[in-house]
């Protein structure tokens, strides 16, 4: 009872943050409902959405208990990058980019783990666990690069008759908007998300959540128009 009450108060106080958590259900439901997971990219998206939902719910729970939940966020970063860039692995045709994506996943996982240890000299102190310093920024840059590379390939190959009915274009657009909004905020999250002496940036803190929700809605549109018959041949 107390738990549910604390949940409700938290939702009431942090509506935008919670929206970004619960909207995840929409694209996830659509993927399963429209059987979009036959496409490898959408299958990865489905896995990503499931892990995101689980991690977000865990973080949500700890947030209501006023416990430090940043460790889960830090752990989700390499996973998130691997799954999202994996989607591009299946969509990009150029072999060079494909190889680049594989290497970048390996490199990034190592880098982000290093970053967790670097940002937390005392790894055992979970209460004062803080956000990674560089990994989110690097993730933004890498993903923006893959998105733009994919866009470049689209206009070079001219294989898709109508982009607005091409599901993966919506996914890309959502990601592009999200990471564009996030790229300048990511570097300072390390200083804002702290128990002691945090940097205060006002509502800017909410901007990534807003765009995360938007991005999830774009995913939903993409999945909604997914239909095996109309899927442009790759």
């Amino acid at each position, binding site marked *: 009872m107390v738990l549910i009450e604390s949940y409700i108060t938290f939702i009431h106080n942090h509506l935008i943050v919670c929206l970004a958590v619960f909207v995840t259900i929409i694209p996830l439901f659509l993927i399963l409902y429209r059987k979009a997971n036959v496409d490898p990219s959408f299958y990865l998206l489905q896995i990503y959405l499931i892990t995101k939902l689980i991690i977000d719910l865990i973080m949500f729970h700890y947030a209501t208990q006023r416990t430090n939940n940043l460790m889960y966020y830090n752990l989700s970063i390499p996973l998130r990058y691997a799954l999202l860039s994996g989607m591009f692995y299946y969509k990009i045709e150029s072999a060079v980019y494909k190889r680049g994506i594989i290497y970048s996943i390996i490199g990034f996982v190592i880098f982000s783990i290093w970053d967790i240890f670097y940002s937390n000299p005392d790894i055992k102190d979970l209460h004062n666990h803080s956000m990674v310093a560089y990994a989110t920024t690097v993730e933004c840059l890498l993903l923006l690069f893959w998105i*733009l590379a994919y*866009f470049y390939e*689209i*206009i070079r190959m*001219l294989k*898709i*008759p109508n*982009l*607005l009915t091409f599901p993966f*274009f919506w996914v890309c*657009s959502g990601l*592009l*908007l999200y990471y*564009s*909004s996030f*790229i*300048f*905020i990511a570097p*300072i999250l390390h*200083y804002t998300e702290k128990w002691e*002496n*945090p*940097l*205060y*940036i*006002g509502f*800017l803190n909410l*901007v990534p959540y807003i765009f995360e929700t938007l991005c999830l809605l774009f995913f939903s549109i993409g999945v909604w128009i997914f239909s095996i018959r109309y899927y442009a041949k790759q």
Partner: protein
Amino acid sequence: MQNSDGLTWAILIATLAMLMMAFFVILFIVFYQKRQLHQEKKLHEIEKDYQRLLLDTALNSEETERRRIAQDLHDDIGTMLSLTKLSLNQLSKLVADSGIKEDQIMRKSQALVEETILHVRRITRDLVPTTLERFGLAAAIEEFINKLDNSKDLKISLISNTEDSPRQSQKTELTIYRIMQELVNNSIRHSQCSMIEINLHVNSTIIELQVTDDGIGFEPDAIKDNNLTGLGLLGIESRLAIVDGTINYEKPKMGGSKALALVPVAPAIDSKPEPLHPFRRQRVKI
């Protein structure tokens, strides 16, 4: 708690700029792709038009060449043969009383020349379907059938409703005539049939030509895939491409084969027949 208004504003502006850029990138991709596709389609169309023009020219020059050959045959060989016949007639009067043997040779030569003249006339008329130009499709097909009927032991019939419909443009008529020729020739050559039926039906929008035989029939798809097609069926397709027509082969259950060609009507603007030899018209005038 640290407070840093300056930093907040800087990040806000940077984020807005970044978002704007992202937004424009998306818009740019959508519109650029659309324009590029449009252009590609246009280019494709131009190419197709060009191909069609090329084909048209090729077929036109083929017809022109036929006309030229026909004219030359008629004017040169024909005249010479007529002269030869005249000379032979004069000669025959001279050798009339020489002897039976000479007389026989004489008659034989005369008969040969007669026959050659007939052949040349037939070839000339085959090369240029003059009946088609003067009296229209039905008459030309009728003539074509009559010629074949004499030579072959099979029944060919024509059912047409073109009497009260206007004449079609020369190109359309010639296309249909040549297609009919090829289809009938194919039936005679390949199908071992005893009956060929030609149906010519014209309404306000479309000309239907249907050629049916009762022979062994053929699988149209198999032939297309098998590379069995000779020049005939390919020629039909390329002729039809120029006039926006279509052809459809069928293998009816009762046996035999059925070909149905559809060509949009193109009424003749000026039904005056063309001169036999387009280049000679000027010479006559001078």
